[in-house]
């Protein structure tokens, strides 16, 4: 079921009882909704947002910048979906918020900062939310000697391609060394930032563009090291008239598969203590919790330690849902809380499997002098020696 029209809202949104489970961790030990924990007025909980959205639909309160601000002040991390007890609709809570944002946008109340995402992404020079000149990835193809046609496409994603190039290059090196028959496409934004901020006008076109490019190279599998792209390609395309039968794979899934099949063997050690931050898009939104952990555990010398809040209870990094661009100071405050939690574990490295989490955790690490090394899983593997056995 999709939640894109006003009718969908009206049929379901009033069913939120506002009991408040959405604010907590599973064991109620802490508030785990970043927005409620920051702003504290009831309206900033998911229940509050749903009631506000229902009020707008019902005509009890009018659209305004203030109403839109409440709807947008949420990283859509999905903690609410995990903890809401109404299982007939709890899996749709983030969809409700995104749909309400889409309605805010239609009504002309998209906040200014988030508008940049649309302006930049639809700019023909960019096709990405970072306003970087679009890379058709031909240089990379040459550099890595990639074919024009292949079974796999490595969908780099805008954050890796324009902000986290080390992560991108580590992924390229790994895929190459692993003997994966892959190539790159002239990709445009996967549309995740637009979906999360309710700016839907170009979404279907962008999705179908990317699908067409993937089809042109004859690929049946798409691998990405970006949790946001992964969720969007896997879960959101079909909701926006961009259906496909591609196999969508996160790099952590490939790595654990290779380890299980004994095709990958690490031959050096990584003697450091690492704590893993679950990206919301990979964890709560896609259900991948154990695959990355299994990889870390199989790296010789690496000690994996868990933060108190992990897996379904993980505290968000604060980057998603348009929060990084809309509320930059708050966004790194959220990451700071994550890094403080990481400190309690004794780890020296905070690792994740998402370039956007990596960006925000790194920004907070720097801004607050937290003293960590922040690395993606693939970057850790890039530092290791390993053998690939066919």
């Amino acid at each position, binding site marked *: 079921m999709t939640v894109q029209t006003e009718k969908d809202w009206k049929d379901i949104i009033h069913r939120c*009882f506002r009991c408040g489970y959405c604010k907590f961790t599973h064991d109620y*030990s802490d508030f785990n909704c970043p927005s409620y924990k920051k*702003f*504290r007025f*009831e*309206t900033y909980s998911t229940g509050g947002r749903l009631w506000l959205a*229902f009020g707008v639909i019902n005509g009890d309160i009018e659209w305004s910048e203030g109403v839109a601000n409440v709807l947008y002040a949420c990283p859509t991390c999905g903690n609410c979906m995990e903890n809401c007890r109404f299982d007939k609709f709890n899996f749709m809570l983030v969809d409700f918020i995104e749909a309400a944002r889409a309605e805010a946008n239609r009504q002309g109340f998209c906040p200014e900062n988030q508008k940049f995402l649309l302006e930049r992404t639809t700019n023909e020079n960019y096709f990405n939310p970072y306003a970087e000149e679009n890379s058709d990835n031909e240089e990379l193809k040459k550099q890595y000697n990639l074919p024009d046609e292949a079974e796999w496409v490595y969908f780099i994603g805008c954050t890796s391609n324009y902000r986290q190039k080390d992560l991108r290059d580590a992924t390229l090196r790994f895929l190459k060394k692993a003997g994966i028959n892959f190539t790159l496409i002239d990709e445009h934004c996967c549309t995740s930032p637009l979906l999360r901020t309710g700016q839907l006008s170009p979404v279907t076109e962008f999705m179908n563009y990317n699908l067409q490019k993937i089809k042109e190279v004859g690929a049946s599998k798409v691998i990405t090291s970006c949790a946001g792209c992964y969720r969007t390609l896997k879960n959101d395309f079909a909701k926006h008239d961009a259906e496909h039968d591609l196999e969508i794979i996160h790099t952590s899934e490939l790595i654990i598969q290779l380890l299980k099949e004994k095709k990958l063997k690490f031959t050096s050690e990584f003697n450091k203590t690492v704590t893993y931050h679950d990206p919301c898009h990979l964890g709560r939104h896609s259900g991948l919790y154990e695959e990355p952990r299994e990889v870390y555990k199989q790296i010789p010398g690496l000690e994996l330690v868990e933060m108190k809040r992990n897996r379904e209870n993980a505290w968000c990094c604060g980057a998603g849902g348009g929060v990084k661009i809309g509320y930059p100071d708050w966004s790194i405050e959220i990451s700071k809380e994550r890094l403080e939690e990481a400190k309690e574990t004794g780890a020296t490295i905070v690792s994740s499997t998402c370039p956007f989490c990596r960006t925000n955790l790194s920004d907070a690490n720097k801004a607050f002098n937290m003293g960590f090394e922040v690395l993606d899983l693939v970057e850790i593997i890039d530092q290791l020696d390993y053998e690939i056995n066919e």
Partner: protein
Amino acid sequence: MHFPMNNEKILNDLEEIVGKDFASNREEELFIYSLDPGASLPRVVDFVVMPKSVEEVQKIVKLANKEGIPIVPMGGGLTLSGLVLPVHGGIVLDMKRMDNIIEINEMSKYALIEAGVTTGHLLSYLNENYPNLQPPVPDAPSAATVAGNVLIHGSGYLSQKYGDHGSMINGLEVVLPNGDICKVGSCALSDYWFTRGPIPDLIGLFTSSFGTLGIVTKLSVKLFHKPKFRDVVFGLATDFEDIPNILSKVTESGLAEDVLLGMQDKPDWMKGYIFVIVYVTGESEDEIDTNAKVLKKIYRKTNARYMKTPPRIREIYMEKPIFAATAADFRKGGGFEYVGAFLPIENLPKAFKGGAEISKRHGIIPTIGSRLIGQSHSAMAFFSYSFNRADPDDMKNAREALHETNLLALELGGIPWKAELAGQKLILDKMDPNYKKLFKTIRDTLDPNHIMNPGNWEVE
């Protein structure tokens, strides 16, 4: 009546007290405070404020007094009976930033906490740090505050064995309507918040008075030993008339930590049965087994029978707190409200019968139950009415059913619990005039400007 006020000036004053981020008159932030999860109609809120300390509460109360603004304290906002919706506008004082657990006294078994601590947080804190202790936990979502629960004479876990949760208060720190900070209970003269007496017991002034006599900022609640093992033993009865005897025999056995009754017509397999749900505890599994056997015998002798508990049902009832709010989605409507009435247990049969009739008359599937309080000294009987929040007529229907149920409870010698405005009026209509006069005298003395949650418990 709505109090005239200079909004901007008052907002500035409130911001001075609590900081800019925690005082608001913005429509998008007030909106939810004007609504209740129960069936009450929306009411106007002028400001929401979130204080962090007793001193801030004190300043807010003094400001409200000076400006003549109504002030309504709010915990989790989950009474379902609109008690935190201002009747005459004014300030909603959302207490949830006062969320410190100050002290756990293991030996005297109490928790000293601020008024915004949620029941979930205290439960979780004890589970992690003091696993041998348990707090009173209401049958409410974990976002309910401990203060909110005990100050409305709440009930829930441990009520059978130790009484209603209001009786578990050892002491309070209260900001009185004139801004004075007053301690009641042993804390008035001792560093130990361990008992209500033996001094004139004024804690009662602040329980079930719904914030009309003061704002509680700190409280001590009793904690209890947590036995190592706990289980639930279900019984089935088919005749309402058997209920009092079953309850008496179960409580006389001394084995029941808690006792619940439940009756609902849906799903179909539940229809026609009254479920007797008894929690037993012990220090070993053998003790649990032995206790369960005694209960099975009691069921047989009282015209009930033991029901083997399906794992799914057991899981639901073993969760603490139980997810009672599931009733909100019975009709895919997001809402329910119930009359909880304190009743003498001998009148439970008539209450169950009468409640079922009211439900049917209003086209609502009967969902009725009871929680025993204080070893059958009383029972909190609940009559739950689900409604569709998106349908004003359906909400009106629920309000009418609630009103009829309040009348039924009063007819049966009971007292509606945490009653909404209409229920409060029914209670006052029946109340001894001198009780009302005493209450009014106390209220007028403490709150001459009538700023504390006006509209509630109004004695004419």
